[in-house]
C-alpha cells in the first residue's frame, strides 16, 4: 500500500464504480457496419485497380504436364497472369495460377483460357482411401501415433468397473464460413512503396511477407485492416492468395484486388479438423469415472489436424489414449475457434452421457461428480435451473419415442485459457480541443476490440465512450499481436489501460499547479477534472484540455507481466444447456433453448460478451445439425462448395438464447471468444438422446441419422 501511494499503478476500480466498462455498450462501429459505410478489404477500390482470380487444382493430386498462361493473356481485359505451381499439386483446390484483369468476370474468362494439362496421381480424400493397404503417400513424413497415459492400467480399470460403454464418435470437417472471404488489395504501382489491405486476424502478421513478395522493404509497406468480416482462426498471414496478388501487382505494376470466391474459400481457405474417436469409458456404481481407453484419428487434410487431449476436462482415474493424424489430399485444417476442443468435447461429453444413462445416474450429477473445479458445479447448476432441468419429467432415462414430438435437455462444459501476452503497445492522445484518441494497430474481427479500446480509455479519463476515438488496424500504429487463442483482450486491455493511466497521470501533473494541489489529488470523473478534496471548483474536461500546448499530450502503455497480473487473467470455464424438440416422424431436431453461463473475469463490454457467447452457440448449433464438408472420394471433388450445398443454420433455426455472465468471477479481463463454441453441439446431441433415446454418435445430427438411431429406418 505504501509503495502504491508513492508510485501508483493502474488497477481496475471496484466493479460497482465502473461507469463505462462492465456495462452494455453498443459497439462504436455499429452504425458504420449496418449502413455499409464500414470499408472492408472487399470494398476497397483504388484507381487503376485490377481484379484477380485463382485457378485451383481441379482434382486432389496432379502431375502438371503443361501450364500455358499465354492464351489467358489474349483474352480482352486480361492484364497479367502468374503461375503458382508448375510441377505437382497435392490437394484438391491447391492454387495453380492467378489472373488479373479489368473486371472479375474477365479474370474468370482468363482462367478458363489457361491451358492446363496434367496426369492424375493416386489420391486419398476419405478415411477409407487414406488407410487402405496401398494408400498413396500424401506426405513425405508419415505421421506417428502419439500416446498419452498408461494403457495397461487404463484397460485394467475398465475391466473391473461397474459399467462400461464402448462406442465410436465422429465429427465432420466444418468450414469457417466467414462472411468476408479471404483476400487482399495490393496498392502498388511500381516504385518502392505499397499499401496492402488484408482480411486478416493479424495486422502485423502479413505485411513483412507482402513486402518480400513485392521486393520492398517491410518499412515501406503499410498493412491495413480497417474492418474485417470474420476469421475464426483461418486468417493468419498473407496466404497463397495474398502471395498471388502481390506477384500479379508486381508484374503488372497496378493495384490488384484479389478476394477468394465462396467456392475458393470452401476449397482452399482452411477448415476445422474432422475426427473419429473410439472410446471405452468406465465408471463405478456412483458414476465416478475410473477408466478410459481411446483411439483417435484426426482428419486435417494435408495438415496435421488438432484434437484436445483426453479425458477432456473431466477427471478419469486411469486414462489412456492413442492419437493418429490421417493425412489426405485435401486442404489443410486451420485453427478454428477453440482448435481441437469441440471435437474432443463431443467425444467425451457423449461417452459420459451414455454412461450416466446406463448407470441410471442423472447426467448432470454425473458431470459434477467428475469435475473437480467447483466453478463448473455452480455454472452447471445455474444453467440446469434456467432451462428447467429440475422440473424435467425424465432425467435419468430418455423420453418415449412414440410421441410425435419429444422434448429433451442436455449439457456440456468448456475450458479455455484466454490470457494475453507481450507485444502490444498503445498510445493515448489528449488534444487541446478536448478530443481523445487511443491508437493501437490491432484488428477487430467482430469481437468488439475497437469498442473496448475506446471504452477503457474513456473509463480512465472519466469520459463517455463517444468522447474517445479508437484508431486500429494499421501497421503505422503501435504494434499489437495477432488475434488467436482468445488472447487479444488479455494482451490489449492491459496495454490500453496503462496508456490511459499514464496519460491521466501526465495530465494530472500538468493540472496540479492550476489546482494548487498535489497531482495525486487531481481526479478525472464525469467529464470533469477536480481536486478530490474539493478545494477549488472543478474544471470541465474542455477547459482543462484548453490549457494543453498545441501538440496536446500523449502517453504510451504496453503489456507487461506486471500489468497483466493486476489487470488480466487466464483460464475460463463455461457450461451450456440445450433443450430440443425431436419430431419423430421426420427426425428433425429443433433447438428450442440454449442457456450458457460463462466466466470471463471483468467483462469490458457486457453486450459484446453476450454476443460472443451467442455466436459460439450458433456456430455449435450449426455444427450439431447442419454443417459437413461432403467429398466424393471416387471423383475427387467436393460436392458442396457453395452455400446452397453447404448449409449453415439460418435465422429460423435460432433458439431462444440466454447468456448468463458469471459475475462471481472477480479476476481481471480474460478473452471469451473460444470457450463459447465448445459445449453447444454436445449439449444438443445429449438433449436429443434425453428427448427420445436416439443416440447419434456422428455429427451432424441429420434427420435420417436420428430416425436411424431410433431404429425406425434401417
Amino acid at each position, binding site marked *: 500500500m505504501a509503495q502504491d501511494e508513492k508510485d501508483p499503478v493502474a488497477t481496475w476500480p471496484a466493479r460497482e464504480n465502473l461507469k463505462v466498462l462492465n456495462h452494455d455498450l453498443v459497439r462504436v462501429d455499429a452504425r458504420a457496419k449496418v449502413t455499409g459505410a464500414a470499408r472492408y478489404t472487399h470494398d476497397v477500390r483504388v484507381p487503376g485497380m485490377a481484379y484477380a482470380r485463382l485457378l485451383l487444382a481441379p482434382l486432389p493430386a496432379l502431375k502438371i504436364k503443361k501450364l500455358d498462361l499465354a492464351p489467358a493473356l489474349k483474352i480482352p481485359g486480361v492484364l497479367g497472369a502468374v503461375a503458382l505451381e508448375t510441377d505437382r499439386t497435392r490437394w484438391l483446390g491447391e492454387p495453380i495460377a492467378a489472373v488479373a484483369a479489368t473486371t472479375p468476370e474477365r479474370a474468370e474468362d482468363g482462367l478458363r483460357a489457361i491451358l492446363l494439362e496434367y496426369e492424375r496421381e493416386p489420391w486419398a480424400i476419405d478415411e477409407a482411401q487414406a488407410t487402405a493397404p496401398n494408400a498413396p503417400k500424401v506426405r513425405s513424413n508419415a505421421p506417428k501415433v502419439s500416446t498419452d497415459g498408461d494403457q495397461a492400467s487404463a484397460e485394467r480399470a475398465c475391466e473391473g468397473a461397474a459399467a462400461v460403454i464402448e462406442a465410436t464418435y465422429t465429427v465432420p470437417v466444418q468450414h469457417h464460413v466467414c462472411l468476408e472471404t479471404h483476400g487482399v488489395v495490393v496498392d502498388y504501382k511500381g516504385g518502392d512503396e505499397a499499401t496492402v489491405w488484408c482480411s486478416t486476424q493479424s495486422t502485423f502478421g502479413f505485411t513483412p511477407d507482402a513486402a518480400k513478395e513485392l521486393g520492398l522493404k517491410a518499412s515501406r509497406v503499410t498493412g491495413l485492416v480497417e474492418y474485417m468480416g470474420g476469421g475464426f482462426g483461418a486468417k493468419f498471414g498473407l496466404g497463397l492468395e495474398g502471395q498471388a496478388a502481390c506477384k500479379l501487382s508486381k508484374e503488372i505494376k497496378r493495384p490488384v484486388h484479389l478476394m477468394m470466391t465462396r467456392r475458393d474459400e470452401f476449397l482452399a481457405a482452411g477448415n476445422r479438423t474432422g475426427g473419429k474417436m473410439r472410446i471405452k469409458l468406465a465408471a463405478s456404481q456412483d458414476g465416478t469415472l475410473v477408466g478410459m481407453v481411446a483411439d483417435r484419428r484426426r482428419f486435417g487434410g494435408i495438415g496435421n489436424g488438432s484434437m484436445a487431449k483426453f479425458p477432456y476436462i473431466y477427471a478419469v482415474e486411469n486414462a489412456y489414449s492413442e492419437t493418429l493424424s490421417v493425412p489426405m489430399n485435401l486442404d489443410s485444417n486451420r485453427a478454428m475457434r477453440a482448435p481441437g476442443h469441440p471435437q474432443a468435447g463431443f467425444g467425451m461429453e457423449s461417452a459420459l452421457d451414455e454412461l450416466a444413462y446406463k448407470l441410471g445416474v442423472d447426467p448432470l450429477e454425473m458431470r459434477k461428480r467428475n469435475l473437480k473445479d467447483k466453478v463448473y458445479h455452480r455454472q452447471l447448476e445455474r444453467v440446469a435451473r434456467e432451462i428447467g432441468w429440475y422440473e424435467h419429467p425424465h432425467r435419468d432415462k430418455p423420453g418415449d419415442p412414440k410421441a410425435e414430438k419429444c422434448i429433451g435437455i442436455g449439457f456440456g462444459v468448456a475450458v479455455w485459457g484466454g490470457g494475453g501476452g507481450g507485444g502490444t503497445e498503445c498510445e493515448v492522445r489528449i488534444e487541446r480541443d478536448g478530443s481523445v484518441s487511443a491508437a493501437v494497430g490491432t484488428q477487430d474481427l467482430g469481437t468488439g476490440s475497437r469498442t473496448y479500446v475506446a471504452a477503457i480509455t474513456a473509463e480512465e479519463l472519466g469520459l463517455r465512450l463517444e468522447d474517445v476515438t479508437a484508431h486500429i488496424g494499421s501497421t503505422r500504429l503501435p504494434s499489437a499481436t495477432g488475434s488467436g487463442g482468445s488472447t487479444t483482450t488479455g494482451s490489449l486491455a492491459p496495454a490500453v489501460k496503462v496508456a490511459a493511466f499514464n496519460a491521466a497521470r501526465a495530465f494530472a501533473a500538468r493540472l496540479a499547479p492550476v489546482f494548487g494541489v498535489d497531482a495525486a489529488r487531481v481526479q478525472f470523473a464525469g467529464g470533469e477534472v477536480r481536486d478530490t478534496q474539493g478545494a477549488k471548483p472543478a474544471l470541465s474536461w474542455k477547459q482543462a484540455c484548453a490549457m494543453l500546448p498545441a501538440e496536446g499530450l500523449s502517453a504510451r502503455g504496453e503489456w507487461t507481466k506486471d500489468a497483466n497480473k493486476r489487470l488480466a487473467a487466464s483460464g475460463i470455464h463455461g457450461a451450456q444447456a440445450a433443450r430440443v424438440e425431436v419430431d419423430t*416422424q421426420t427426425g428433425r431436431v429443433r433447438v428450442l433453448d440454449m442457456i450458457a453461463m460463462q466466466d470471463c473475469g471483468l467483462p469490458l463490454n457486457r453486450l459484446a460478451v453476450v454476443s460472443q457467447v451467442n455466436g459460439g452457440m450458433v456456430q455449435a448449433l450449426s455444427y450439431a445439425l447442419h454443417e459437413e464438408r461432403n467429398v466424393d472420394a471416387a471423383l475427387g471433388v467436393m460436392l458442396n462448395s457453395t452455400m446452397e450445398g453447404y448449409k449453415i443454420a*439460418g435465422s429460423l433455426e435460432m433458439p431462444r438464447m440466454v447468456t448468463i455472465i458469471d459475475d462471481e468471477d472477480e479476476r481481471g479481463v480474460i478473452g471469451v471468444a473460444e470457450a463459447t463454441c465448445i459445449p453447444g453441439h454436445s449439449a444438443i446431441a445429449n438433449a436429443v438422446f434425453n428427448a427420445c433415446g436416439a443416440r447419434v454418435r456422428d455429427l451432424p445430427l441429420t*434427420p435420417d441419422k436420428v430416425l436411424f438411431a431410433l431404429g425406425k429406418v434401417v
Partner: protein
Amino acid sequence: MKVVSTRSLDDALKALRDAGPDARILAGGTDLMVEMESGRTHPALVVDVWKIDALRQIREMQDGVEIGALADCGALIRSVQVARHADTLIEAARTVGAVQIRNRATIGGNLGTASPAADLNPVLFALGARVRVASTRGERELPVEAFVKGYRTTDRAHDELITSVFLPRRPAHELRFFRKVGTRRAQSIAKVVVSAAVAFDGERVQAARISAGSVADRTLLFDGLAQELVGAPLPQAAKLSEFLRRHLDAAAAPRDDVRSTARYRRFVLQRILESSLRSPAQVR
C-alpha cells in the same frame, strides 16, 4: 451467346421458332443462371421473357383460376385469387428460397426446369393443373402430369413457351395439404415434399390426387393409390399405413444424394402422407 429481350409474346415466339434447340427461355433466371454459372448449360441464344407483362396476370374464371407463367412466388403469395382457388400453392410458394428468390422464381420456371425437388409442381399435380403452351404454330393445353416427362424433362417443344397454368375450382369438402421437409427451415431444397387434394362426399372419398417430390427422378402422381381410395372412407390407422406402404414402395424410387438418403426419404414420405391424410384440420 446472344440475348433477345422483348416485351412482346409474338416476338418471343418468333425468336424461339427461328432459334432451334440451342435457345433457352429466361424468366426469373433463378434456375437458368445457376445452370449457366455452374457450366452445365451453354445456350447459343437466351430469350428473355421477363418483361412480357401479359404473361404475369392472374385471372379468376368461372371454373377456376388462370395463372400467367411469369407469376412469381411473391405474386402468388399476395394474390387473393390464388388464395381462393389454390391455398396450398401459396403454402408451397412461401417455402421457396428467400424473399429475393421468391420475387424472381416463376411458376413457369418451376415447371420449365421440372426438377424432381421442385416445390410448386407437386401442388400443381395435386390440384389437377393444366399447362397452356404456345408457339407460332398455335396453342395447346395438357395436364401437368403429361407435361412433366422425366428428370428435368418436359413435353415442351423447343419453339414452345408456357403461357399459363390453369387450376380448376375446388370442390366443397376437400382435404388439402402441402408439406415440405427441408435441410433447414428456410432457403432449402426439399428432402421430401408432398401435396394432395382429396375430395369427400360425406365420409367417402370422391376424388383424390396425391403427389410427391424428391422421391423419384421427377414429381410423382400416385394415381394407383388415389384410385383405390375413391369410393370408400379413408382407411383407418393401421390399414392406411399398410395401404400407403404397398403403394409408395412400388411408386417411389428415391436416391441417396447430398441432401438426404433414399431410406430416409422412403420412410418420411410415408409418415408425412399418413399423418396429413389423418389430420381432419386439413379439410377445408
